[in-house]
């Protein structure tokens, strides 16, 4: 990943982490 510009890599990292957290969260109608 050496050639992935640092700005894109940081944003991608943050996006993927937030997505994992969102996917772990129970669906809104889980009550």
């Amino acid at each position: 990943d050496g050639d992935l510009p640092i700005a894109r890599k940081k944003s991608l990292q943050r996006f993927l982490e937030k997505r994992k957290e969102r996917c772990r969260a129970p669906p809104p109608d889980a009550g």
Partner: protein
Amino acid sequence: PPMAGIVNQETLQQRLQALIEGARESWTYAIFWQSSVDVSNGASFLAWGDGYYKGCEEDKRKMLPSPATSAADQEHRKKVLRELNSLISGAAVAGEDAVDEEVTDTEWFFLVSMTQSFLNGAGFPGHVLFTAAPAWVAGTERLAAAGCERVRQAQTFGIQTMVCVPVGGGVVEFGSTDLIYQNIDIVDKVKVLFNFNFGGGG
């Protein structure tokens, strides 16, 4: 070429988040396109600086497959996300990194945006950099008929409103799956949050 300033990267993410989370309307994402100069030919261009993805209602209903996305599209998106996960973590994808949930249209649009850049005057952000004036496009028909490929592309992924505002060191773009008519408040807020881009930042 625009004044090439040192953009305060540290506070960029917080400012993008403050813009989206603090807004009255429901915005899906915000991106800071950073202005740069190609040393080989002196051309100024915009490239990905940072982005904030809030998501939208569609993300919360993601258990239901989106009718517009074919199974093949979904499989391709999940494959790309698995590869990105291993690219970032530097290891083969473990169970936790497996991508089971559907990759929504707006998530995919945000990811695709990370790969894009725009010459001064080209594309929606490049046009705004060139004119140095904010631009607001609202309504599915308007987005679909826009002269910029990026705006037409956004519409295919469910975006109904797209805004670009020129700031110090680049252009701030934000969009929504909602139809949001032009209002000066959020444009002013962008200028307050981002026009201290150089050095200390606010």
